[in-house]
């Protein structure tokens, strides 16, 4: 069933459709939030808040196959709000425990990714994340980031250029 059909059913009060929609997008939203906050716990909180906000404002959503963009916009705003809050770091080193399912290769990939992402601007990083991480179209990325499609395209293109250079320098 398409996202918009599920949303229509939810608007009519169908709880099963609500559950299906949450299960469909819980993991992608969590993954997106995890890239924006250091703590796994916080990412889970933000994911939950994203869905709560979605359900509270679902009556304002006007279809036209833009559900993903709508959902990621909520998540993005929450992540931005979170990044603005004053942080209190605990005295103990609260390293995030690695998940059991996370293999060596995954850790290596993450380190490599961190190195490639370092020279990128925040917008470029966000655009790459939405494009390759969440598989959004450029139109959807533009909607989430509040820019036009050409800007979104050029952000991704420039980011790829910088990352390619970074990779070659390392070699």
């Amino acid at each position, binding site marked *: 069933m398409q996202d918009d059909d599920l949303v229509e059913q939810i608007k009519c009060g169908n709880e099963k459709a609500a559950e299906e929609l949450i299960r469909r997008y819980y993991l992608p939203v969590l*993954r997106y939030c995890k890239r924006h906050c250091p703590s796994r716990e916080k990412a889970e909180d933000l994911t939950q808040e994203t869905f709560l906000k*979605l359900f509270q404002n679902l009556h304002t959503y006007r279809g036209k196959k833009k559900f993903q963009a709508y959902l990621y916009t909520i998540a993005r705003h929450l992540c931005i709000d979170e990044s603005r809050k004053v942080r209190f770091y605990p005295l103990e080193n609260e390293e995030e425990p690695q998940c059991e399912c996370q293999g060596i290769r995954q850790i290596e990939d993450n380190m490599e990714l961190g190195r490639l992402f370092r020279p990128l601007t925040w917008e470029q990083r966000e655009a790459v994340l939405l494009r*390759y991480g969440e598989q959004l179209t450029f139109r959807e990325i533009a909607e989430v980031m509040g820019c036009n499609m050409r800007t979104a395209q050029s952000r991704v293109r420039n980011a790829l250029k910088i990352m390619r250079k970074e990779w070659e320098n390392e070699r």
Partner: protein
Amino acid sequence: MRDRELKTFLRRSLRQEACVDPSRLEETVWRCIKSLREQKTQEEELRLGFWGYLSEVFRFDGIPILGLQAVSLLLVCLFLWSFADGPENLPGCMPLFVLAFLPVVFRGQYYGMSEMEAATRTSGAQMMLARLILAGGADLLCITGLLGVSASLHGLGKGLGRMLLYCVVPYLTCMVALLRMTRWNKRGGIWGSIAVLLGFCVFWGSLAKAVPWLYETSAAGIWVVAAVLFSLFFAREICYIAKMGKEGKLYGTIV
């Protein structure tokens, strides 16, 4: 690194499956469904349509508007009966009907309650539009009554069209002037409007004496043109108020 390799790497590393904590997922589902149920139980408050709103305004302003118009009609009829000797005296009486509308328009300003009016759910422009409709309806009744009285005094059916123009043109000029005064001169709107309307009273009253040929049958064209012209001005002002109302803006009487 070639482009394709870089993209493949990005896809692989960015789409690494995050571990989902089943208890958090269930908690999210439960909280969202709870929120959905709460929304369902909260009954939506229906928005009041324009006619519903008009009836609400009528509850508060209808009686003063109709009452004051009735008093004006009575005074004008008495005047026509006692002193006036022809339909050319009709224009001088018309500003009185608009004058009778002032207490309702400027009530908020007079009692220092404009801010309360501005804080209501409807905009000042919507309120003004509703009052204008009510006053317009009352004036229509008054003009019909006045024409009836005038026709009985000066002969039934004789020059009824001209008498209608003598009522409509001054009425429209006064309404346009009132609306302009309300819009432009917000602080001194009430006193400015009274002065302008009394000025119109004198102007239309003395016009019959100063320019008698204007009330001859051959000058009916001028009256028709004036009626069309002022109708256009009036319609433009009403459209402006309606537009302001839609945008939820204020119109006039805030101090």
